[in-house]
């Protein structure tokens, strides 16, 4: 049984005569790998928890119970640390891009360029699914075309620095960057498609009549930005901690209790249905991406394809039943179905592509 504790960095062991030909590039790769292991995978934490479980609780790491306890403790602590650090840093950066500023930036642009900028801004603007409606109303009321608004709405929950770093911790930076690129492409393409279909009539008329408030533009001081970032960490931790515990619990069950055959029967690389199943499982779920991290890790450990796991994570973050229900209040059923269909379809497509790529590259 694969246990995280024994994941040694064998590749770093070099013989005495092997130093010739080491370039700065090798050094950089080494450094990144070291950072990855210690800051993201937190090998030191895995080892610490292993000592606790073995010597403190007297359980066998290789056994089911010991393995589950180790996974649970290690993952919960790791995720909370990542959560606090990432949310703080990202919220600080996001304080430079309040929705009002995004709206101003997008207001002056047209065509595909506007879609691209909207998709890019979606990755840095603070967003939780509770603000999809005020944002939609605020953007559309200010005259931004539907294409631009939807590019933003698709990219915002899907791609952000936190998910990129999380992905790098589960897979590697290549996959993480590919995720960002495909997420942005999906956002731009989806928004453009929606724009081409002339759905303006599907929007409730009151949206177009909404007042546009651009009050003063308060520029926060550094201390205010830090306070805001701290507040975000506190808010988000209070909001998502049950999901994290649940996610780690499910991850532990998959990791230690559910046999690999059962998992691959449902989600195996070679099964054509694994991607759609992952999408269907993920779409209705309302959870934070941090909660999906342990499940994704466990699935990868049981041989589920990269694409399938990405599809699951994207489906959980990009779409959720609560936000769809809320969006229905401002947008007609046809436009809403189109939005959900394009996003879901794109996610499934990405899953198939990544699964196929993984098979061909290994």
């Amino acid at each position, binding site marked *: 049984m694969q246990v995280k504790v024994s994941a040694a960095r064998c590749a770093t062991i070099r013989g005495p005569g092997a130093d010739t030909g080491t370039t700065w590039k090798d050094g950089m790769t080494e450094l990144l790998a070291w950072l990855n292991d210690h800051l993201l995978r937190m090998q030191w934490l895995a080892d610490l928890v292993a000592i606790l479980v073995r010597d403190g609780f007297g359980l066998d790491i290789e056994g089911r119970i010991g393995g589950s306890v180790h996974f649970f403790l290690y993952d919960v602590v790791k995720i909370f640390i990542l959560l606090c650090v990432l949310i703080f840093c990202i919220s600080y950066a996001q304080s430079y891009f*309040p*929705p*009002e500023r995004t709206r101003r930036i997008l207001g002056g642009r047209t065509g595909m360029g506007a879609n691209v900028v909207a998709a890019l801004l979606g990755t840095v603007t603070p967003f939780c699914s509770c603000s999809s409606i*005020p944002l939609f109303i*605020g953007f559309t009321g200010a005259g931004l075309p539907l294409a631009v608004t939807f590019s933003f709405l698709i990219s915002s929950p899907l791609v952000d620095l936190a998910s990129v770093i999380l992905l790098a911790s589960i897979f590697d930076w290549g996959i993480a960057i590919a995720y960002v690129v495909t997420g942005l492409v999906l956002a731009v393409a989806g928004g453009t498609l929606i724009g081409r279909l002339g759905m303006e009539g599907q929007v409730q008329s009151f949206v177009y009549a909404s*007042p546009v*408030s651009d009050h003063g533009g308060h520029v926060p001081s550094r201390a205010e930005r830090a306070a805001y970032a701290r507040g975000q960490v506190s808010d988000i931790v209070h909001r998502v901690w049950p999901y994290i515990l649940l996610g780690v619990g499910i991850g532990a069950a998959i990791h230690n209790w559910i046999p690999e055959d059962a998992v691959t029967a449902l989600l195996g690389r070679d099964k054509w249905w694994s991607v759609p199943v992952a999408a269907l499982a993920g779409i209705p779920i309302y959870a934070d991406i941090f909660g999906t991290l342990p499940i994704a890790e466990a699935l990868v450990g049981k041989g589920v394809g990269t694409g399938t796991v990405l599809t699951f994570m994207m489906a959980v973050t990009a779409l959720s039943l609560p936000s769809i229900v809320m969006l229905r209040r401002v947008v007609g059923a046809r436009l809403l179905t189109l939005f959900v269909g394009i996003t879901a379809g794109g996610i499934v497509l990405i899953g198939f592509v990544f699964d196929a790529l993984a098979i061909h590259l290994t």
Partner: protein
Amino acid sequence: MLIEILGTGCRKCIALGDNVQAALDGAGLSATVEKVTDIVEIAGRGVMSTPGLVIDGRVVSSGRVPDAEEIARFLRTP
């Protein structure tokens, strides 16, 4: 004077409510303070991120929680 606090009930909105009350008490003013929690109504006031603070129909802040001092300054300007 009508003060509206726009928010869906998260902790920041409650904190804003407390700060507004503190500002009113400190300035010795009284006003009708209402909480707007319906998300469509909030957006209809032109606010894109909560919590929002509206004084006599004018949006003075959104997406953050100004302290009692700043709110007092809002109350003073016509």
